[in-house]
């Protein structure tokens, strides 16, 4: 049921992550063990999902989507968290409903696209936009703009892969750019601050520009070969913030140099390529679109995080997939790989749509 080349690449990347985490956490084996346990849980979840037929996901997609929306609405009223309301406490567990949307939104859109003949036209585009906008607005209001954009992107990939005409795509892009000032108007002050700091980090070197400056110093001082494992001065002198979570790539870049970064990129590129290939093998459009969109979404995570670490993109709270310390995102990520593999391994069963 599992696609061994993909599993191999995922495990290799995650193990690389554990090695980096050991250095980044200040040689704390507890951190590494906790992360390894989560990795094992994630791989188990992935295997289970891979064994389930995508037919089942398709049937349940609308219900799953609706559940996610209901939970998001609940968060708006009952959620907790410092400053932002992102968490839902069910007594026995606490989680971010936005994680569910990372899977259920592309599933819903794939289900919707699957219902009619492709490529989609105007009408499908408009309905899709509504399906995307409802959860995206709810998440953005938490406020968690980063996740909202990622979730929205995963949905738009489905539409893109379904073959939306280039004319409509360009029209859509132009409209989105025209709406940027409106978005700016609705942003929170701290979000605007992040954008302004991104444009000129030196304007506030002790405050919000700190992260970007220190991160770039870490990356740049790593050089071609790096300072060596556990030799990150930026991290060990605590110049680098959140060095085990969102900024772990800066530690990797400082300790393993450009070669380490390129190795990681190569692994990521292989994973993405493999996902798209697996998706292409599926026989029905639901499976194809879902798997393809999940693969491309994974790429966006990498792009946003690597862009932020190197100062190409503003700082948003996005972890580096498979490397950053933290459980929820790792598990939902591996679950999505489980979905992709399920699509591939059940392709013959779904010959008829």
């Amino acid at each position, binding site marked *: 049921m599992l696609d061994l080349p993909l599993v191999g690449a995922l495990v290799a990347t995650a193990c690389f992550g554990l090695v980096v985490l050991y250095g980044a956490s200040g040689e704390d084996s507890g951190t590494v063990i906790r992360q390894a346990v989560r990795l094992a849980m994630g791989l188990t979840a992935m295997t289970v999902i891979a064994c389930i037929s995508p037919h089942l996901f398709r049937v349940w997609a609308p219900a799953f989507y609706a559940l996610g929306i209901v939970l998001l609405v609940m968060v708006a009223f009952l959620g907790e968290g410092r400053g932002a309301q992102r968490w839902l406490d069910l007594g026995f567990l606490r989680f971010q409903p936005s994680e569910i949307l990372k899977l259920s939104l592309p599933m819903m859109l794939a289900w919707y696209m699957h219902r009619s*003949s492709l490529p989609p036209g105007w009408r499908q585009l408009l309905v899709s936009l509504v399906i995307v906008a409802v959860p995206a607005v709810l998440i953005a209001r938490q406020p968690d703009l980063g996740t909202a954009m990622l979730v929205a992107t995963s949905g738009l990939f489905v539409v893109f892969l379904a073959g939306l005409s280039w004319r409509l795509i360009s029209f859509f892009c132009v409209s989105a750019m025209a709406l940027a000032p409106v978005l700016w108007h609705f942003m929170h002050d701290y979000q605007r601050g992040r954008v302004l700091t991104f444009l000129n980090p030196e304007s506030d070197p*002790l405050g919000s520009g700190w992260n970007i400056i220190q991160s770039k110093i870490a990356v*740049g001082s790593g050089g071609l070969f790096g300072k060596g494992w556990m030799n990150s001065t930026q991290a060990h002198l605590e110049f680098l913030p959140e060095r085990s979570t969102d900024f772990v790539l800066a530690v990797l870049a400082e300790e393993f140099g450009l070669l380490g970064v390129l190795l990681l990129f190569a692994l990521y590129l292989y994973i993405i390529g493999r996902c798209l290939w697996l998706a*292409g093998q599926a026989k029905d459009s639901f499976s194809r679109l879902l798997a393809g969109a999940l693969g491309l979404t994974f790429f966006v995570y990498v792009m946003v995080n*690597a862009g932020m670490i190197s100062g190409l993109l503003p700082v948003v709270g996005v972890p580096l997939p498979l490397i950053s310390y933290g459980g929820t995102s790792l598990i939902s990520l591996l679950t999505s790989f489980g979905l992709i593999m399920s699509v591939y391994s059940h392709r013959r069963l779904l010959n008829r749509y």
Partner: protein
Amino acid sequence: MKAPARKPVRDAVREAAIFRARAQTGFLLVCLVFAVLSGRYFYLQVISHDEFITRAEDNRVKYRALAPNRGLIMDRNGVILADNRPAYRLELIPEQVPELDATLAELGELLEISDADIQRFHKLRKARRSFQAVPLKLRLDEAQVARFAVDRHHFPGVDIVPYQTRVYPLGENLAHVVGYVGQLDADDLRSVDSGRYAATSHIGKIGLEQAYENMLHGEVGREKVETNVQGRILRSLDKAPAQPGHNLYLTIDSTLQQLAMASLGDYTGAIVAIEPGSGEVLAMVSQPGYDPNAFVAGLSVADYQALIQSSRRPLFNRALRGGYEPGSTIKPYMALAGLENGIIELDTTMMSRGYFQLPGQPRRYRDWKRGGHGEVDVVKALEESVNVFFFDLASKMGIDAIHAYLDQFGFGRPTGIDLNGEAKGILPSRAWKRATMGEPWYPGETVIAGIGQGFNVTTPLQLAHASAVLAARGESGQPHLVRHVGFEPAAGDADQPVARPVTRISAARADHIEAVIDGMIAVVHGKRGSARAIAADKPPFVMAGKSGTAQVFGLAQDEEYVEDEVPRHLRDHALFVAFAPADQPSIALAVVVEHGGGGSTVAAPIARQLIDAHLGHGTEEIAAQ
């Protein structure tokens, strides 16, 4: 495309081909982005490597934050109420201290550092970056500075740094107005912009220091410094000096304030004096006060507990937050309400026989004077504080009209003065009682509301403000303590006045207001005026006043209140509101003396004394005191 009937005939092969084409395009874009990212990392790690390696090595070159000087606070005559004085504090830069605990222990032996200092240091350290200096002990004396200077080389990362500390020259006289600054703690750092407070050790905790923190603080400066291995600063590379905070120029007259504070003597209580019309607060006193300077240096736990647990509650701002039954001080507003609502006319009289009864009810609402006052009109009703007149008036007017009219004077809601934490008091109404007690309004409650008893609760500030509105003939600005914020005193009319809301009573007829004021003048100057004792010397000005008594405990209907037989803490609160000169008032005030007994005996003389001082009358006697 042929129009399909219902389900379109799907071209599975074509759909798969479309997907594959899109997936390939997508992958191409992915590769392109990875190429861009790789290029960016190549640029940072190979091309700019030398620059960044220097910057990483150069962690010894640091940004040091420079604390701004806090703005000063001055009274209306330029007397300084909050000043800055140079002092020295001991600071640690945690990153540069090799063994923190050992160093703290050694420093403790050398410089008498308390456990509280160390606890605060650890809390503060967590909220700041490891290269930022964290204060350990403030206000070092000269001997300590000298002792440390000798041993300085033993303590890398530790330094004595000059800073400005806050001093309140008038101490407890203005503690409740000016407030104080206290040491910035980790909680404060979470609520402020930590960059802006990177070098600041104190923050406004209460009073104007807190309410105007943003303006007083100023803007942090930045210095780029070169340091050696031990972290000692070798030279300054670049400097952006700190911008000092704005000064506050208050409406307070500190002479009047001190006199008001002294006038209460041993009593607890509150006094608020306001300039009618403008709403400028001339004095705002809550007795007892406390020494704000003690809070700046850091109070010991025992001292703080003593302040908190004191039965006299020195930390409680009675002027702003104290709630008192207004008693008879409400009568002028009731009288005006009656006139304006057409319940009584200027020439309406009634017969006072010493009690009032609601039709068909046995209960007698008694006057303070047995046998009554005889024939009473509105002026006499105020002069002699005739309860029965107001029982009758209130019962005829009804609680809805009373509430509607008195609301215009600002009773039952905060005045909006520029201090935090103002209490709103209670101006009872049907809706209020339903909402808070879930009960309907009873006619008997209207009767006692007419003499300011029952549910009525006001703050001294509200009383003073309402009296200022009346004194200014129906229109007065929102009470405020800060006249001007800036670097120089406001130049009179050239100064841009801050737009403030104005309290205005609707459609008050001038002759109605004058009649009420005549009644209040008679209180002080009349033959039978309830406070005539304070004008027995025939002062060269006319003042208007009204006494009041706030019950502390309820008497049974047939009990007599004999002041001397009641223990002091159960005695009634004495109230007096006044303004002068009556025709063109420049001061309106409210005096509340807790457990002072009747309003005219204790509170009224205080009001007279303050008005004398304000109008420059009898200053010789005051100076002689």
